[in-house]
């Protein structure tokens, strides 16, 4: 009987094994077929939030969709606008419209034409349904001039309009399959989706309708939540690109088999303060907090020194950047003094700090900052919350005193700073300054480059002085690739150009 | 001719107490011997010694035990199957618990037989088992063989146990309380099975029982045990018609008065079987004995009354 039972168990498990592995064949077979083709594998920690660029706000989506879809224009490493689906463009004299000339003969991966009509349809969808439709509210109409020419008319002047067409969420999608784009994307980019098993892998293969340069036949995003796994996989040649934390740089730096790309991104990491909560409504307290925190120590402790210290809400890579770091240097004595002036003695101010659990670096940074604030006589109560809770209670609900978070990069000062407008929904700082509001209005309508630059500088200065947040750093992203991979580069917005890479 | 079973001054103890003190007993070939006494006086322990079934903390300290010329006590565990278990059959006290509750009777009856007789096919062994069951008066043998113990009555299980013991050509059948825990009707049936077995075969039997009526019908000779010692032994007639030891007398007296649970009746006699002090040479029964006198506390020797009749008492 025992033997029969054992046999039964063995057969049962064999059956299950067979049936399960059978179920995965269709997904994996395509991956195996590319044995002789060039394939680049990149380790990522989370799945994309669907593959519809209009319907997602997640960076993990855009690093995939930027290879599937095309935007009208795109950027180079320095953030200059360069042609993509549009070969050329002209801005009207009054700045109230842009006309794009599309690449003739462009096709979606399903064979549909990617012409002016398709572009217009895609933008109509963006304007009416997208998560970011608000950012494009300045567009009043999209006009199909001819098969390869499309004109965007603006309802209000927006001098930085061109750059908004470069963001991956403004990609052109085939609206005839709009309902299924999240799982079966159709775009005109160099790659198309070949398989996606959530939390396992996502494989892109060459789009047969793509005529441009393409050095890599297949791109596989491998979901690996654990850093150790990623590093071992890279060392063993199972993946080609990983994103690492600063402490691991030493492991690859002197190894000829790997290339370390440490580049300042276009992001911002800061500790937001609720300017409406008791204590923090006093600018002296906010300044005291800025004096009390040793940003260099925070950057060293959390990011191993891989980060550019900032003094205002502006990434160092943009041309309008000015250095405001010297305004409030680390000075705990001054911090105590300011606190006393504001009426808070030692230990009399208690602040609640919320940290988003999914981002370990923010949790770490929060703990280091809290320790430094405690030394300056401010009590900090830390609570670590889930990302969804953070979004709901802290970001949307604005129920907090302090929180550490990051913002993704934008190409112009307005998109970056619009959240400081006192009426903005994104203004979770509860910051309100009429001068800032006025300057923001002015910025968008100032055609003169020098004058606009001046406004950007003034905005940075005001924020640096009034410190609605503790600006920590512009993070340096450290990608490690195998040395065989050439052409890997990082862009000021969250995109990758796999078609420009190749193996040697 | 040597005795089949020869137990000589056997001493057994656990970590605290002496259990058997200089126990001497023998069974001749083909002889039917009964061992009687109250619960707790060491009957079961003495046959467990014979069968190498002692609990972990119980050990033999002195004495010898020979079965069919083999020194049983020196047997190692791997020799037991060949040297002992193939020649002694054993029917345990609690017959319903001594069958595996989950295996079919046919399996249980033939498994060990097949292991011992390589080359015999299962069907042949089952055939043999069926034959034995029939000879024990079992009807509907095929159904019984394909049943599990919980599907059978107590009497059937008892017969199966006897049949299992008889599967091999044994020389001695040891039965521990073969008729206790059965209701009156079944008890009578099983008694008949034993009696007819005793009459038919030249098999030696060692019955442990406190059912004196059964003993009287079955046995050639009787040993009476009390508190780990033999107190009287003799031929059946000697014991039943002229018991000497007060303990034997009270057992027989009680058996004649009532035919019920003996333990209870003995309890009416007052007192219990002592656990401690079994090594002492004085009379262990003295405290419960009507005829107690001063010299019962002294060294009471095992007296010879006739060639076959011995007693440990001054009277």
């Amino acid at each position, binding site marked *: 009987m025992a033997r029969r039972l054992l046999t039964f168990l063995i057969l049962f498990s064999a059956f299950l094994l067979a049936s399960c592995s059978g179920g995965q064949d269709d997904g994996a077979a395509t991956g195996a077929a590319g044995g002789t083709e060039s394939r680049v594998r990149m380790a990522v920690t989370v799945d994309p939030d669907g593959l519809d660029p209009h319907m997602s706000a997640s960076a993990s989506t855009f690093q995939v969709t930027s290879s599937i879809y095309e935007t009208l224009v795109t950027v180079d490493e320095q953030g200059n606008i360069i042609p993509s689906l549009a070969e050329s463009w002209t801005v009207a004299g009054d700045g109230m419209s842009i006309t794009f000339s599309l690449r003739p003969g462009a096709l979606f991966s399903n064979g549909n034409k990617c012409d002016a009509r398709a572009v217009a349809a895609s933008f109509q969808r963006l304007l009416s349904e997208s998560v970011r439709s608000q950012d494009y509210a300045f567009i009043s109409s999209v006009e199909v001039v001819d098969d390869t020419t499309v004109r965007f008319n603006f309802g209000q002047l927006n001098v930085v309009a061109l750059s908004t067409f470069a963001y991956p969420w403004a990609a052109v999608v085939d609206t005839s399959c709009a309902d299924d784009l999240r799982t079966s994307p159709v775009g005109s980019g160099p790659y198309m989706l070949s398989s996606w098993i*959530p939390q396992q892998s996502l494989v892109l293969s060459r789009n047969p309708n793509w005529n441009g340069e393409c050095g890599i036949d297949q791109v596989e995003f491998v979901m690996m939540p654990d850093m150790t796994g990623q590093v071992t996989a890279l060392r063993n040649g199972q993946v080609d690109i990983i994103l690492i934390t600063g402490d691991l740089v030493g492991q690859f730096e002197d190894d000829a088999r790997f290339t370390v790309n440490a580049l300042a991104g276009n992001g911002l990491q800061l500790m937001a303060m609720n300017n409406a909560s008791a204590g923090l409504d006093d600018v002296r307290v906010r300044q005291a907090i800025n004096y009390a925190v040793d940003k260099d120590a925070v950057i060293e402790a959390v990011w191993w020194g891989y980060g550019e210290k900032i003094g205002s809400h502006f990434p160092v890579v943009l041309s309008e950047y000015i250095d405001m770091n010297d305004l409030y240097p680390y000075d705990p004595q001054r911090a105590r003094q300011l606190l006393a002036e504001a009426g808070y003695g030692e230990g009399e101010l208690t602040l609640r700090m919320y940290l988003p659990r999914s981002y370990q670096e923010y949790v770490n940074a929060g703990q280091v900052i809290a320790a430094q604030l405690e030394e300056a006589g401010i009590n900090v109560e830390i609570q670590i919350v889930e990302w969804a809770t953070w979004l709901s209670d802290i970001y949307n609900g604005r129920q907090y005193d302090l929180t550490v978070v990051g913002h993704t990069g934008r190409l112009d000062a307005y998109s970056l700073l619009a959240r400081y407008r006192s009426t903005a929904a994104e203004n979770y700082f509860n910051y309100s300054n009429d001068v800032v509001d006025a300057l923001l209005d002015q910025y968008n309508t100032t055609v003169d480059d020098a004058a606009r630059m001046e406004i950007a500088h003034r905005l940075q200065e005001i924020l640096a002085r009034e410190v609605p947040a503790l600006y920590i750093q512009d993070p340096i992203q450290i990608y490690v690739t195998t040395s065989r991979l050439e052409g890997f580069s990082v862009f000021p917005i969250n995109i990758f150009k796999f078609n420009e890479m190749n193996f040697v | 001719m040597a005795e089949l079973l020869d137990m000589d001054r056997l001493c057994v103890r656990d970590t605290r107490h002496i259990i058997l003190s200089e126990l001497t007993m023998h069974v001749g070939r083909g002889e039917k011997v009964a061992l009687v006494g109250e619960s707790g006086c060491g009957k079961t322990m003495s046959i467990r010694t014979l069968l190498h079934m002692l609990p972990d903390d119980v050990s033999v300290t002195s004495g010898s035990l020979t079965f069919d010329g083999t020194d049983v006590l020196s047997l190692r565990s791997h020799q037991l199957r060949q040297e002992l278990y193939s020649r002694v059959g054993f029917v345990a006290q609690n017959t319903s618990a001594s069958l595996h509750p989950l295996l079919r009777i046919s399996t249980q009856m033939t498994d060990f037989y097949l292991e011992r007789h390589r080359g015999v096919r299962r069907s042949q062994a089952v055939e043999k088992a069926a034959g034995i069951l029939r000879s024990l008066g079992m009807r509907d043998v095929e159904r019984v063989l394909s049943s599990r113990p919980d599907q059978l009555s107590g009497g059937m299980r008892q017969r199966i146990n006897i049949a299992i013991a008889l599967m091999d050509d044994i020389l001695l059948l040891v039965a521990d309380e073969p008729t206790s825990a059965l209701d009156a009707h079944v008890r009578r049936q099983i008694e008949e099975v034993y009696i007819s077995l005793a009459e038919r075969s030249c098999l030696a039997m060692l019955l442990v029982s406190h059912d004196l009526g059964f003993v009287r019908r079955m046995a050639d000779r009787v040993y009476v045990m009390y508190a780990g010692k033999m107190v009287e032994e003799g031929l059946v007639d000697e014991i039943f018609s002229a018991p000497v030891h007060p303990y034997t007398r009270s057992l027989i007296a009680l058996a004649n008065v009532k035919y019920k649970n003996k333990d209870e009746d003995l309890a009416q006699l007052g007192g219990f079987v002592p656990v401690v002090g079994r090594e002492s040479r004085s009379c262990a029964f003295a405290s419960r004995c009507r005829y107690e006198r001063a010299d019962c506390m002294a060294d009471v020797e095992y007296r010879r009354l006739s060639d076959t009749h011995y007693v440990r008492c001054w009277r």
Partner: protein
Amino acid sequence: MGKYVLGRIASALVVMLLVSILTFLVLDLIPGNAAIVAVGVEGSAETLARLEAGLGLDRSLPQRIADYYRGLISLDLGTSSYYAQDVWSLIKQRLGVTIPLALLSTAISFSCALILGSLAAYRRGGLLDGICRTIVQLAGSIPSFWLSLLLLILFSSVFSVAGIGDYVPPSVSIRGYVTAVFLPVIVLAVGQLGPMLRLVRSSMITSLGEDWYASARVKGLGRGRLIFVYALRHAISGPLTLCGNQLAKLLGGTAIVESIFSLPGLGRLFLTAVEMRDLQLVQGIVIFITALVVLMNLVFDILVHLVNPAADSREAGGA
């Protein structure tokens, strides 16, 4: 038997209903919803409202519960808001990882426990018994995530074994699959071994003390058959029931071990679903796991009944 099974299924349905209502309440209670997560730190209040309406989150809780059950009756677990895929197909994908993992580790721990436990009980107090009791204590106390970390350090840093933390389906590469699954299987098997070994040992000790064991021994039955057929057959119903419980627990996914070894199993899917407030997916997984637990217990109860038809119904009912 049929009536018994029906009764069990009925009570299982009640439990599943309770569990899923609890899940609804809890997900309603905790802050954030799928729309908020989708919008993130970009997007406006109007966008948020539009997405919430699209996901049906603007309706009242009873309405949503009613809708969900209406779907459930037609065996439709709904669509994941995060993955935009059918919930059942997402779960099914994970089972390909989770089921072999659970079966392998249960098979290993169960067979180890049967062999070691039986021998330890047979030679009670001996060297093997001592080793077994040490294993019982150590395996029962070692935190699985710590063991995972230690093994990960040992194998990937010290021995530099390739392929750990890189799941490959067996249909692509058997070798890759084995390296990816090897360590997690060990961790999970060790986690189950403690209680199983303890139970096997103690029920074997009980069996070895039974009269029929002594009788079978005196009949001269060989040692191997005595231990592994007679005694084990009798002792196995308890361990078999426990095996069912353990298997059910593992089939529900082991979030921590899966995330340490980067395995795309059900546990990790559940964590992501909760994180993304993917109500349909959370519900689907919770209901599926509950059903699985109930089903496994039922299957193993029936198995126990087959092995041990004499077992009283109290034992089967209490499992």
